[in-house]
């Protein structure tokens, strides 16, 4: 296939290879480090037209990883994976233990991996470096050994050493694990993911290897519900569920096409053009990350959240926690130290949409139902507080 200059994208990708290409395996194997996913020029996050709910959800989960990740479901070709891939560029670098395969946090001694613990016992300080947050792709065709990690064949063959080769879960520690077309992921991989996501650790017992390492990652998935549905257990693991639909505004659509064309013509120039916006958003996220732990949420608002979940008969407490965390992250994103009812209003639908009991005869969108209940509760709350003021 002839490649004229119409495809600079491809050429750039290939020219990026050399540094990592000369790795140990077979000449052209790339051992992606955390940055490698962004070694291609990706479409800038801030240049995405519309789709505000998706963008907000992604930003919130970047501010507070404890929200529990995002799943983006909706029509094909609406910028789902573009949004996720663009996120990597917005994440501020973090402190890591130098040379650790899991990127342990030197400030959290109780979460260190076995390697770091033994290093710490030899020397009472761990070497520290600043590195980017990993955004790891979990491809659909991955095999379980590469996801969980297993015996390093190469070292076993060449050196006769029984060594552990970390898998994708290790690489994703303290970062994001992204699964495109998540609803097509094989069940046995989903099982492996669920275990790790629930415990924050990956336990490997295979081929003579026995190891446990930290695997705390933010799960991000995207897919089209018409291709197949998600297992409820997996769905429940995602903090926020955002629905994305085709943009039908003609002017917006024209703008989308024009931007995409400009990007395809000259990705670097396009990126430069968006650098200001990107920088602003990156700084805002960094500030919010520092602020979020200090954001207060009033008891009254917590009661409101609980009432909402009771009203909607949401099982478990993950719904409440997610709303609370997401509204704090939203407050921090807007530079406030207290969360407001308005914050809850903006995040509740995303946090609960996938947690409502499925009524097979239901034709009303669950999002609309949540919104309705919420508006009612907030009205009640405001009349109550007004009464109190009067008293």
């Amino acid at each position: 296939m002839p490649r004229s200059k119409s495809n600079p994208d491809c050429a750039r990708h290939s020219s990026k290879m050399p540094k990592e290409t000369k790795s140990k395996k077979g000449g052209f194997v790339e051992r992606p480090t955390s940055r490698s996913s962004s070694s291609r020029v990706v479409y800038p996050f801030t240049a995405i037209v519309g789709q505000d709910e998706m963008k907000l959800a992604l930003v919130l989960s970047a501010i507070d990883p404890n929200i529990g990740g995002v799943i983006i479901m909706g029509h094909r070709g609406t910028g789902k994976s573009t949004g996720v891939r663009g996120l990597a560029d917005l994440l501020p670098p973090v402190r890591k233990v130098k040379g650790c395969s899991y990127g342990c946090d030197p400030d959290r001694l109780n979460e260190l991996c076995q390697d770091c613990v033994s290093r710490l016992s030899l020397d009472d300080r761990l070497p520290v470096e600043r590195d980017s947050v990993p955004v790891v792709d979990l491809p659909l065709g991955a095999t379980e050994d590469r996801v969980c990690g297993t015996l390093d064949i190469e070292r076993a063959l060449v050196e006769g050493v029984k060594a552990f080769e970390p898998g994708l879960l290790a690489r994703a520690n303290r970062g994001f694990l992204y699964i495109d077309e998540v609803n097509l992921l094989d069940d046995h991989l989903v099982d492996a993911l669920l275990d790790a996501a629930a415990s924050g650790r990956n336990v490997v017992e295979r081929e003579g290897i026995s190891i446990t390492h930290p695997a705390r990652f933010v799960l991000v998935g995207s897919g089209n519900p018409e291709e197949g549905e998600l297992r409820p257990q997996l769905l429940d693991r995602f903090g926020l569920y955002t629905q994305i639909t085709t943009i039908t505004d003609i002017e917006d659509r024209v703008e989308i096409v024009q931007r995409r064309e400009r990007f395809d013509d000259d990705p670097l120039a396009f990126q430069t053009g968006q650098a200001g916006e990107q920088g602003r958003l990156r700084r805002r996220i960094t500030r919010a990350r520092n602020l979020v732990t200090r954001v207060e949420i009033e008891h009254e608002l917590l009661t409101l959240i609980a009432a909402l979940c009771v009203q909607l008969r949401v099982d478990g407490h993950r719904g409440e926690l997610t709303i609370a965390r997401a509204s704090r992250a939203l407050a921090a994103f807007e530079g406030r130290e207290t969360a407001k009812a308005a914050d809850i209003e903006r995040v509740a639908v995303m946090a609960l949409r996938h947690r409502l009991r499925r009524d097979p005869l239901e034709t009303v969108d669950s999002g609309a139902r949540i919104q309705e209940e919420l508006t009612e509760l907030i009205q009640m709350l405001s009349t109550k507080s007004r009464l109190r003021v009067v008293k």
Partner: protein
Amino acid sequence: VTSARYPFAAVPGRRAATHALMLLAVEPQLRGTLIASAGSAEDRILARAFGALLYGVAPPRFTSERSQLREDHFEASEVDGAVVELPVNATEDRLLGGLDLERTIETGRPQISAGLLARANGRVLYVDDINLLNGISAHIGLALDSRVVRVEREGMSAIHGADFTFVGMFDRDEGCAASLLRDRVGLIVDTPAERSADDRAETVDRAFRFDRDPFAFVDDFAFETAQLLSQVEDGRARLPLVSVSLDRRRQISQIAVSLGVEGNRADLFALKAARANAALAGRDSVTDDDVVIAIQFVLAPRATMLPSQVEHKQSDEASPADRADEDSRPDLADSDRDLIPGAIEDAVVEAIDARVPRDLLSASQGTPRSSRAGKRFKATIATRGRYVRSATDPPRDSRVAVDATLRAAAPFQFWRRVRSELNRSQSQVTVPGEPGSTSRRVKIEPRDLRFKEFKRRSGILFIFAVDASGSMALNRMAQAKGALTRLLQQAYLHRDKVALISFRGERSDVLLAPTRSVEMAKRLVDALPAGGGTPLSAALVSAIDLARFARLRGTPQTMLVLFTDGRANVGLGDRHSTSARATIGEEIGRLGVLLGAAEISSVVVDTKSRFVSSGEGEALARMLGARYFYLPRSDAASVCDAIRSNTRRPREN
């Protein structure tokens, strides 16, 4: 140089397909095309000829990591110049790549083998029948999107360039499988190949001439070929200069919205197609003609509604689901309509009309397909599915799990090398020159062998055949819908597949081909209209057909759930329509036997109210060898449970 290629210019007929491929040659950013099949031999000629055309314009240029692949990795059968053919029985291993056993043993270091997607980098990837791609089409779609293939398999981790142009053929009778793929290629040629008897004769004649003397044949078409090449080259040179006015852009987006095209990717493809067409025609700006072409190849095949349907819906009493849909879509007001000139509107309607699949009934009566498909089924079943884990005991017909075998062998390598060195020094004093090379080889013994355990997606296909005749409208259609939705939900929980057939009037319609998407099924059930006769036989034929196709795709067990009031009054075909009820009865009896032969277990859910029932439902169940449920008496939940418990048991006769 070594062999002549069938020239693109010599492909007779198939004007739509060749036009689309020319657009693709001019604008590779269109990424690929799906073409309605016209028989695989002809399709292959077309695809190969397209490869030859591209080859003629400029030889494939490889990205750097590709060029590091040793050429001996290309099996001659798969790679013909610019075209890499993906066999429909390709496994995930072959598609994505993995550990290369031979070279790993040779070199003593793990070596990766590139999958077909990586091998297609810089070339054309051709698939003969995408309907038969079993679950692997998603990988192709993702590679089209990202232009790379991420390998995380068998201990190997790599990113390979996979920037290819996709050409796939699909069978219109089997609907549009692989929706992910449909979304990621720019052009879709949905119209069947219109070929006159002359065209057919010409095809055979030319193929014959090409076989007899390929070089002479190529020479015969040298002039046409040169013309095409210069057309493509000129088109490419002109492409960056073609301007598209803002109004044109609006027009394209407007049409996409009015056709209910999902996603925003189609707009971009439509624009590229229009522009490529203008460049090919030697124009400097996009005109109406170019937009019509864009509609034909990009927008119309993705349409989910007709522009005229919007008005129709508004006047009609629409179901709640429809109404919700409408809210999210802007109405096509008269003022907007002005943007679409008459010619284009006609093109839209025409293109969509052509899409309506041939009557399923007549398709099912053709017999040659089943023999062909049956062979495929047997040939590929043993190694289909996904490589899940490895085992020491080989399952039948299994393949070696390379990674696990190497891991098992690895710890013993040192001792085995020592041992073999000792053996050699005992038998022979020295082996000059080569000890280094052999000792690095990996030594594998039989007990190291591990085998791949494949996991097929199992689950049951539920075919819901819903009687939507006039009598059903009286007999608790609502209740049937309730039971149906509950069953659908259960199918969702069990990861089963569902298909939906409705029958009324003269014929049955497959509303939903086997899918896992309960959302879609639910939407369709909600909108199910009722009225007309009861063509039960037609529904049974459709169900048998669906079950057969489903089995080919790895869903071996089928359950037919028939919602009816049991009064069939329309037979198969015109000949029977005037004949007596008894004849229809006989017909159903025969179909019942066929159901049994196809190993489809069935359930009849009688929806008739008790007062007027004369045991027709029970009689029907007897004829079909089906279990019988009476809906009005039992509530939806208990019917569901009963049906579900019935499916797991072996069929009793």
